């Protein structure tokens, strides 16, 4: 156990944590949206992220494009992928209940992981950006350009999803269907269509999170699972059903990990995160930021 030697060190660890947390946050928003339409934890979220990471890896291997152009490519492709996945697979299975959907998500995760291992090998891959070693410095705290871009993308993605849910009629329908599918149908909303839209956005966000991940971490086909767990913890921190809460939950998680890695040791970061997760579930199941909602009649 050792404490921060100076304020600068503390700020640096804090900043690193916030950046790490932005990635968790984007994945968490996706997870939270998908939970809204299917009432299951979409365990394959991390595998989808890694698939996006491989897309970027191959894109920079074969084209001169910068990985950050990948956001423009990944978002439409993964939204489409999500739509196909929902209408082709989950829509049919959802009729049979939650458990089959959960099993399907689990199967999808394993399938994706093994397909990626088969086609791309299990080697670690890294995505280097031109600015990988560029950093800005402010009062002795360094901000790597990579991470700043990722944080900006995270904020933009969160804001767009937030505005979509609050300002557009389709976004409001998404929230309505998550609350009460039957009542939404009585008002003329087609629950399957609204759920497909929600799921697609969730997968699109997983893609964004994947791009963010690959420029920071080396990855292999199985690297995603831990992100599914982290996103789940972030959602638990923020409280289900709140977009801002999910991002903030991710940031809290990132800071917590970064702080504990520095003070207690790197190997402890995950242990602290899971311990905090358990404590939250026991003492504040509605999330740190979530309000306890009145029971539905």
């Amino acid at each position, binding site marked *: 156990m050792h404490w921060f030697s100076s304020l600068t060190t503390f700020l640096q660890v804090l900043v690193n944590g916030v950046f790490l947390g932005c990635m968790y946050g984007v994945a968490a928003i996706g997870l939270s949206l998908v939970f809204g339409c299917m009432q299951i934890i979409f365990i394959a979220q991390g595998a989808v992220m890694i698939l996006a990471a491989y897309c970027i890896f191959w894109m920079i291997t074969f084209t001169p494009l910068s990985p950050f152009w990948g956001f423009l490519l990944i978002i439409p492709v993964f939204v489409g992928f999500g739509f196909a996945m929902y209408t082709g697979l989950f829509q049919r299975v959802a009729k049979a209940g939650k458990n089959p959907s959960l099993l399907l998500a689990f199967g999808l995760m394993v399938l994706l992981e093994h397909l990626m291992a088969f086609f791309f090998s299990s080697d670690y891959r890294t995505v280097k950006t031109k600015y990988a070693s560029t950093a800005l410095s402010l009062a002795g705290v360094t901000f790597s350009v990579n991470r700043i871009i990722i944080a900006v993308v995270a904020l933009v993605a969160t804001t767009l999803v937030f505005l979509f849910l609050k300002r557009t*009629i389709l976004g*409001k*329908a998404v*929230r*309505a269907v998550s*609350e*009460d599918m*039957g*009542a*939404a*149908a*009585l*008002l*003329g*909303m*087609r*629950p399957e269509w609204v759920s497909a839209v929600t799921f697609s956005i969730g997968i699109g966000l997983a893609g964004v999170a994947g791009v963010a991940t690959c420029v920071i971490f080396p990855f292999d086909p199985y690297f995603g699972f831990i992100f599914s767990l982290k996103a789940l913890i972030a959602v638990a921190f923020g409280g289900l*059903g709140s977009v801002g809460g999910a991002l903030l939950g991710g940031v809290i998680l990132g800071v917590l990990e970064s702080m504990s890695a520095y003070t207690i040791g790197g190997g402890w970061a995950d242990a602290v995160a899971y311990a905090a997760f358990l404590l939250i579930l026991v003492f504040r199941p509605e999330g740190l930021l979530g309000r306890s*909602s*009145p029971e*539905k*009649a």
Partner: protein
Amino acid sequence: MANLLLEVENVDVFYGVAQALWDVSFSVEERKITALLGANGAGKSTLLKTISGVIRPAKGRIVYAGSPLIDCKPEKAASLGISHVPEGRRLFSGLTVLENLELGAYLPNVRPLTKESLERVFGLFPVLKKRMRQAAGTLSGGEQQMLAIGRALMARPTLLLLDEPSLGLAPIVVKLLFDTIRVLNRDGVTILLVEQNVKKTLDIADYVFVLKTGVMRMEGQPGQLLTDREFRQAFLGRIG
């Protein structure tokens, strides 16, 4: 013969293996208030759900505005002008009052009318305007029922199905709701009302059907039923 907006013909409905409705037939006249009375568990809500497509009948058919509803889902029924205010209101409690109302006008044919529809609903229930930005879950029971009806009206329904709007509400609110139902009907909305409040219902209904344990038992104008011995015994608790 008056125009029939809705005809239910020989309908059987099951929940799993349990039969809830037996060979039920009845009809709703255009621009009238038709009421369905019956004890708890008589199948009134089931009948409404069958009309709005939530449950599919095992036998029989439902004819709406002259054409049969075949394999009709709730969203289809809604698009045909059937608005169902379900039992227990089923508001989106985390959404604001305004958002709930806006979603009432979700269908593309009525969405452009959202603004005017809102004015109309706020005219009927001024308290909803005051509570516009509040989450629906924070409203009182009466206000929630007003919102549920308001939300259904946003769809500009031809046929409004109301499932026990007075349940659990204070008498003064019940009076307001029944007055509103009458106003809506005068404005041209056909109403099918399910109720347990027999006295109030007989006051406003043009025609009444009585369900008993899944079977249509009696029908008639309120005046006729009031002279019926069996009806008085069942609903008014006294003979003579």
